[in-house]
């Protein structure tokens, strides 16, 4: 499935994109295979259910505590980072963030920016903002590199090219990279990617990265990765720009190890990643490598809206492991692109309304059977189904309110409201209920054959010829007459 270069596609087409994805057998099997693989690997990392529960409770406690002190911790982080020589910028919107980063790039006359994996950079549409200013932004994470080469967006927050087979990647490399013959050997494909990108690390003027955890007490940016491209991006170019959401801060360094182990085990079922890269400052005068300048962009983009509500604030506990999507029956069937948002799957459905407003995203919160698998595997115990129900209610709410989430009531339907009013009236008064059910059982033949979405793949709903009440009355009178 080809995606538009935008990081967000209209929510109204969510249904048609989902239908197309469900009808694509190669996409279905790519996701099914990947989900089964990731689920099994995660499970193998948590053999002891009690240890897992304790660890999740600890992860939740750390994230909830960090959020409870968020404004203080952000100020402390800024103080410590500044003292360490890292320049801190604050951005309210994606445009603000891109303007700040473009300004840094232009000040250094940058032509090539080499990127480590950063979902926040996807969220703000960084690559396109740089492209528009004539600066090349090149992805260096193997999955992101593949997706960028194909002109697509990532379909998973951890494994961006999860929707592609190695045959498709071999063909892509053959078509897009000069002098590369077709191969479907994975080692060979990775060797090709390594060779192409190695020169780019050395050539790039600026390296861009995300942040997994920002530590307030020491002024440290923590980056988690396996490939080493993140280390390249943050070490080789003269300038390193890190971008992150304001929710990623923790108070103490000792809060990192439990979150780190939860992240790697939940995400890819690894006991640990190859690299944990802790950055606490630019190159010192006597050091021989590392960037001369480090900038951190702290992005709001709707996060303060989620923060303002006690229940919705739990969304910000997320450490972006992707376990919820790996275990989601909806994500497994429609894949990441159908959502049309930077963050797909269950976490995408609950974070996107804050980033983009409910008007654009109210369809996403309905894309769940509320089975609860996501909250069961969430390493920081985010109650995702509760949040989905809350957001559905917000989307249906009758009036726009200034304090609530943006786009509140945008899915409001007068017909649906009238139906539920009628339902409440009927179920609140026994006489009306009896009368209505009697009428329905008598006039059941009048039920329409087409019942909207329900009859697209099911037989029409029809009231029973006799009500339960009538059947029970008959049974009881029969029993009495026998007695």
């Amino acid at each position, binding site marked *: 499935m080809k995606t538009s270069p935008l990081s967000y596609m209209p929510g109204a087409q969510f249904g048609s994109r989902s239908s197309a994805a469900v009808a694509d057998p190669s996409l279905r099997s*790519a996701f099914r295979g*990947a989900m089964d*693989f*990731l689920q099994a690997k995660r499970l193998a990392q948590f053999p002891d259910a009690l240890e897992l529960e304790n660890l999740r409770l*600890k992860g939740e*406690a750390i994230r909830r*505590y960090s*959020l*409870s002190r*968020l404004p203080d911790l*952000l*100020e402390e982080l*800024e103080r410590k980072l500044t003292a360490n020589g890292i320049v801190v910028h*604050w951005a309210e919107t994606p445009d603000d963030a891109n303007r700040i980063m473009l300004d840094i790039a232009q000040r250094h006359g940058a032509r090539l920016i080499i990127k480590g994996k950063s979902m926040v950079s996807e969220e703000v549409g960084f690559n396109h903002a740089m492209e528009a200013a004539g600066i090349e932004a090149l992805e260096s*994470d*193997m*999955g992101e590199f593949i997706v960028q080469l194909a002109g697509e967006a990532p379909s998973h927050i951890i*494994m961006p090219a999860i929707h*592609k087979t*190695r045959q498709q*990647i071999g063909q892509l490399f053959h078509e897009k990279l000069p002098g590369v013959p077709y191969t479907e050997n*994975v080692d060979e*494909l*990775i060797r090709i990617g*390594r060779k192409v990108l190695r020169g780019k*690390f*050395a050539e790039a003027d600026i390296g861009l990265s995300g942040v997994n955890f920002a530590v307030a007490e*020491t002024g440290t940016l923590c980056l988690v990765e*396996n*490939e*080493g491209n993140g*280390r*390249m991006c943050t*070490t080789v170019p003269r300038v390193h720009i890190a971008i992150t959401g*304001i929710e990623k801060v923790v*108070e103490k*360094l*000792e809060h990192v190890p439990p979150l780190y182990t939860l992240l790697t085990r939940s995400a*890819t079922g690894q*006991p*640990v990643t*190859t*690299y944990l*890269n*802790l*950055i*606490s*400052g*630019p190159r*010192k005068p006597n*050091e*021989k*490598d*590392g960037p001369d300048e480090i900038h951190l962009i702290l992005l*709001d983009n709707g996060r*303060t809206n989620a*923060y*303002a*509500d*006690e229940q919705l604030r739990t969304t910000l506990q997320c450490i972006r492991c992707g376990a919820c999507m790996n275990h989601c029956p909806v994500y497994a069937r429609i894949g990441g692109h159908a959502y049309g948002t930077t963050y797909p799957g269950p976490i995408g459905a609950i974070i996107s309304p804050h980033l983009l407003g409910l008007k654009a995203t109210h369809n996403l919160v309905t894309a769940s059977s509320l089975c609860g698998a996501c909250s069961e595997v969430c390493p920081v115990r985010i109650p995702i189904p509760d949040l989905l129900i809350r957001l559905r209610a917000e989307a249906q709410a009758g009036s726009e309110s200034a304090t609530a989430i943006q786009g509140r009531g945008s899915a409001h339907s007068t017909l649906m409201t009238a139906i539920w009013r009628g339902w409440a009236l009927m179920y609140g008064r026994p006489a009306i209920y009896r009368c209505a059910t009697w009428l329905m059982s008598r006039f059941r033949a009048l039920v329409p054959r087409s019942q909207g979405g329900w009859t697209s793949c099911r037989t029409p709903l029809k009231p029973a010829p006799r009500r339960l009440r009538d059947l029970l009355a008959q049974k009881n009178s029969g029993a009495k007459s026998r007695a």
Partner: protein
Amino acid sequence: MSARDRILARLRAAPVIAVAAPAMSETSECSEHAADSSVLVKRFADAMTAARTEIHFTDDAAWPNLLLRLAKEKKVNSLLIGTGTAHGDRLTALHPDSPRLLNYARPVSAWKSELFDGVDAGFTSARGGIAETGSLVLWPDEREPRLMSLVPPIHFVLLDAATIQPDLQTVMATQGWGRGLPTNVLLISGPSKTADIQQTLAYGAHGPKELIVLLVMPGLSQP
């Protein structure tokens, strides 16, 4: 009002939810064996081997020749060493014919293309090890800069077995990381890898394809 002030003002206007500081005292499975160094070393070696790291048990007298022998076996022609380190000086004093020893003596900008294309292996020390996850702790500095453990295709590491701790939490506490950190601290738990193509594991994505640890055991003294 700046963006910073507006963001902070919105956060401060939100309801205050008091949450107690999390209890961090709990111990990991490995910390129960903190006193027994042989258990820690075994766990460390097993975890590192599982992540495809080569481990060689050696001692303080034998490691320089072991390193030279391994380098020869792996056809390493040029080996990058730090400047002004005791272990680097010991290698230099051996004046090996092969591999050719290179010093990371100049800023990276002065020899970037040579570093990226002309160095077969890097050799650094590690500040410590972590038994639970099989991780090396590196604090790159002016003597052993950051890229030594990243750019060359093979990374040799010298580790004193006595520095292996049960877990990351213990390393942070005993080394006092919370009081302040150097510009860069690294945990390395294997060779560079990726599973981004159809979940198939491939080594040597962007960093070293091979990670080789020379584990210096205190008990193994040469006669």
